[in-house]
């Protein structure tokens, strides 16, 4: 397993969410597979120079989503998570809303439409089995 996560402490997004989002992206992409062991909360906290509780919060949210099995003092293990057969309509609406906000923010920063479209296409291709 070679997986690296990246956070930006200057970002307005809380660090625990950035950690959770980064690990989730690796889980969805298949870079982390069932049975893989994640580093203990202390180790990841030290490597990212953030408080242990911040990492613990990220692990807990991923555990609540069914991605991780948490064992005290032994880190977290990736577990088999059945993909929900169909996302509830609320989930799709939330996704569309967040995507619209993200695209608007990127456009406001001057990112060209073609670049946004290319990024989205690339991400969709990565998700396809």
């Amino acid at each position, binding site marked *: *397993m*070679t*997986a*690296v*996560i*990246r*956070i*930006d*402490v*200057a*970002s307005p997004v809380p660090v625990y969410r950035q950690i959770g989002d980064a*690990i989730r992206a*690796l889980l969805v992409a298949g870079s*982390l597979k069932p049975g893989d*062991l*994640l*580093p*203990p909360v*202390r*180790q*990841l*906290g*030290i*490597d*990212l*120079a*953030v*408080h*242990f509780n911040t990492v613990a919060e990220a692990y807990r949210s991923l555990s609540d989503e069914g991605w991780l099995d948490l064992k005290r003092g032994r*880190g977290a293990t990736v577990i088999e998570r059945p993909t929900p057969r169909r996302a509830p309509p609320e989930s799709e609406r939330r996704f569309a809303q967040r995507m619209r906000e993200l695209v608007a923010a990127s456009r406001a920063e001057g990112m060209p439409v073609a670049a946004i479209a290319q990024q989205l296409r690339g991400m969709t291709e990565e998700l396809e089995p």
Partner: protein
Amino acid sequence: MTAIWMITALPFFFECIVMYVLPSLSRRTQFFGVTVAPDFRETAEARRILRAYRNQAVAHSIIGFCGCVLAVARNAPSGLAFAALWPGVGSLSAIALAHRAALRHAAPASSVRTASLRPRPRALPGGPWVWAGPFAILAAPATYVALHWSEIPERFPIHWGFGGRPNGWAARTVGGVYQFPAIGALVCLLMVFVAWQVGLNSRGSTAMRRQTVRAMAALAYLLAVLFGWLTAALPLGHGAPSPLNLGIIMGAAALLIVAIVVFGMRAKEEPEPDQAPSAAPGLVLGLSAAPGDNMADRYWRAGLFYFNPEDPVLFIEKRIGMGYDLNFGNPRAWVFLGVVLLIPLVVMLLSRL
């Protein structure tokens, strides 16, 4: 006598070389502990700061050596201690001055942090047998001395003055005879603890972590051999200092330091196993920036001491030189330092038993 003077001059000469090259043992994006642009080192200002630092470092070594000569000539042990400390303390103050000058050219620190999701091994690298070796080395002469207990005189010399005359003695008691293996075991225990904590509780490149643990092991073996020799030699009357004895000890220490520097430089060149080599590395000796060391310069006091209470790390890769520094913002660092300072106290107590 000439040999003794040459051996006395050696540590000062060696320290002078180490301090002279020290700024070159940093990443290119760090100059005297300050984050700078990768091409800053080529500027006239950087060269001026470096030249001023090196002049001061050489001057402090010369002052230290002259002080040492004077102290010996006047038979002043306290002056000798002062002279021996001078080059180190003087060079550190020169680094602090260079750090202050470099701060005017600091580049903004990055807010991006990365981490590998590969769990680190929790056990000591090399396995328990590697780390048991130094203790076995200490146990062997201790057993030898126990078997030859009757040959030990009631009082034996353990310290010698400038003229080579003994001026410190120990009695044939358990405390007097076994103080050397006990001190050796304490120091080796400290090496084991540092190696274990650097493995678990540090931030820096994987290669530097591995190299530091190896250096700790090598140091533990060297010290075990030294204290083992003292254990067997002093009570049986073979420990009087001679140019050969001192030369061997200093030679071994110098070899170890050179090995640490050479292997440390190689370690700094190794890319992280989980990350592609940086496209724009930035470095002296072609090295990429140390992983996890994009913290703001304000946390690095004088470029030498890391103080960040918000950072949970205990050991962090040095910005100047090889190895790790303590995070003095972490209360556990002060506990660790307290334990280290307790060792001389234990030594004193042991020698009085």
